[in-house]
């Protein structure tokens, strides 16, 4: 533990090392009291600055909540219909402004749920692949590639989704409709129409959140104590049994919180959804049919032509979204905090 840092000090930080030597020399010249006074002032200024920025962050969070609440309060009080159960979105109607989040909440939850159903098992599989299955040669570059893909802007996912994924999903859609149409969920009322549905949005969101879920769960799987794995193998377990008995139980909180981080992202995704979904104020359980909407997508689309009350109404939708993501992310962080070593916030 103690042998390595001193060389670190001398070779890595040349300039700091020399500054570290200089102060005693200047101490002799400038005198004890002035140095002390100086350093106290400097210390308190610096402490004030850094604590101040920490507090500033808290103030920003509080201000976001406060302003959105204030604005949405204005909007909801002018709403002539029930904000929670109304389907349509017509806040700029001068005579009878009416808007509600029923369709948006439904669409947001359904698309995020589809994304999670697809992404979580696959991401867990990829994380296991990187940490336990892949040959070293492949694992490292592949992990790197996954990290890079987390940085692809969502507008590009949206463009790809609208111009590449949608036409290519038509076959799958008609197959699902043909063989699973009896489930009601997979029934298509308008076969052959472009697949700009909540289901497609769910698939696109799954692809978008794969990298982050993979990155966080991979870090967790890497931290499984080697001794646990070797003990399982020594008792005669196959590799899969070792993973089931040693790796997955250790990594479960990590998988859960990674999924919730991904969920938070899927819930708040805006522009990719707006690009792919052809929205309408229809709440339909036929998830293959075009239509529906999500909170974020609705805000982005309706913002351009929104009047004063329209903007406030969008803030109300934003407030609901903010609260939902706050709860999801907060829960994820609380789970993650039980094991302090991995946080994944920088992934």
């Amino acid at each position: 533990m103690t042998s390595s840092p001193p060389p670190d000090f001398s070779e890595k930080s040349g300039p700091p090392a020399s500054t570290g030597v200089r102060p005693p020399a200047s101490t002799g010249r400038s005198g004890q009291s002035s140095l002390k006074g100086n350093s106290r002032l400097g210390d308190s200024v610096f402490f004030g600055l850094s604590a101040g920025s920490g507090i500033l962050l808290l103030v920003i969070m509080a201000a976001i909540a406060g302003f959105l609440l204030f604005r949405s309060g204005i909007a909801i009080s002018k709403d002539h219909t029930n904000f929670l159960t109304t389907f349509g979105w017509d806040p700029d109607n001068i005579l009878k402004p009416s808007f509600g989040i029923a369709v948006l909440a439904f669409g947001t939850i359904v698309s995020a749920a589809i994304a999670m159903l697809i992404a979580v098992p696959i991401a867990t599989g990829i994380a296991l692949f990187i940490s336990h299955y892949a040959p070293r040669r492949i694992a490292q570059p592949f992990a790197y590639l996954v990290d890079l893909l987390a940085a692809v802007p969502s507008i590009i996912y949206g463009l790809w989704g609208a111009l590449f994924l949608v036409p290519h999903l038509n076959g799958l859609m008609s197959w699902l409709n043909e063989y699973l149409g009896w489930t009601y969920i997979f029934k298509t009322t308008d076969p052959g129409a472009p697949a700009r549905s909540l289901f497609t949005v769910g698939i696109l969101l799954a692809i978008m959140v794969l990298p982050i879920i993979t990155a966080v769960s991979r870090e967790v799987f890497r931290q499984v104590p080697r001794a646990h794995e070797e003990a399982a193998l020594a008792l005669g377990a196959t590799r899969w049994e070792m993973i089931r008995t040693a790796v997955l139980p250790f990594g479960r909180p990590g998988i859960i919180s990674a999924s919730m981080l991904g969920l938070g992202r899927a819930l708040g995704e805006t522009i990719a959804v707006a690009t792919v979904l052809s929205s309408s104020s229809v709440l339909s359980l036929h998830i293959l049919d075009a239509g529906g909407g999500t909170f974020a997508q609705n805000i982005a689309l309706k913002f351009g032509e929104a009047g004063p009350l329209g903007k406030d109404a969008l803030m109300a939708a934003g407030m609901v979204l903010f609260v939902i993501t706050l709860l999801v992310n907060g829960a994820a962080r609380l789970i993650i905090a039980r094991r302090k070593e991995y946080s994944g916030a920088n992934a």
Partner: protein
Amino acid sequence: MTTAPSVADRTPVPQLNHTLTAARLPRWAPAGVAALSIVLGCAIGAGAGLASHLQWGLLAALLFVAISFGLAARVEGVRQAKDRIATSLIWVAFILAVIPLVSLMVYTIQQGAGVVNGDFLTHSMRGVVASSGPGGGIYHALLGTLQQIGLATAIAAPIGLLTAVYLVEYGRGPLAKIVTFFVDVMTGIPSIVAGLFILSVWNIGLGFQYSGFSGSLALAILMMPVVVRSTEEMLKLVPNELREASYALGVPKWKTILRIVLPTAIGGITTGVMLAIARIAGETAPVMMLVGVWDSINSNPFVGPQESLPVFIWQQYSQVNNQYGYARAWGAALVLIALVMGLNLIARGIASWRSPKAGR
């Protein structure tokens, strides 16, 4: 003593083989089964006249799983068979993930490569009738994006850095815990919510108009928590011996932080900031809401609407919405992806070049 030589020279003693080392499928078995199931899948697919090659592949994959399970269960036992199933499922997950991600990259490069050229990079859309033909470029959008992320970095990087210093160097007690928690939660704020917040305070509350600066305020909110988290990780890696050595020489704390701790971690901090920049460079929704859209060059980010690359893509896709618009959108997408990936690669390069090694 008696078993060792017999195992070593592999004498074919069937009973011994069964009790000591259970029978195994030969090493080439997975490859063999894969080849067999691909042949079978193609045969059935062609025989039944299935049009889509995707269905052939699915058939082959199903056959592979079934045959290898059956074979392994017969020869090696059920536990080994389950192990083989798990292995093949995990490989399937890998392949399933690679297909869309690679397709995204390849398709963007394919579509965008023909559009991007010197003309495209150095001209704006001023005077170009976007819907009726090719032409025009992204210079105004590139300029706007660079100015906006520059301003956002100038706001977010110092605040994020100081917050991280507070958390690592001073942070004890409840305030630090609360800040840590809310920084984590703040990473998950949807970008559109940050946009709405700036809209309600800056534009509606204080009466400012569309400008690049109000966009950068929203981007700064999105960037701060990322900077805090990555800087925090880096500051934690600075060995404590360095700080103690500095204190022992009589250096005050603030000077120790400024001259010893931060320079040691500067590589990692730079990496974190650049990753955060890469993250906000592609933000569309808040920028569209706060900066507006504009088809000409506006080099003053404080007055008037500006264009930015993501908004340009969105505009060309959703408003122009024909082949010319799509072509320009793909060109801009390629430039944006190159920008983001370039930032990422540089950041990771810096990280591996001079990151403090964890004390071990």
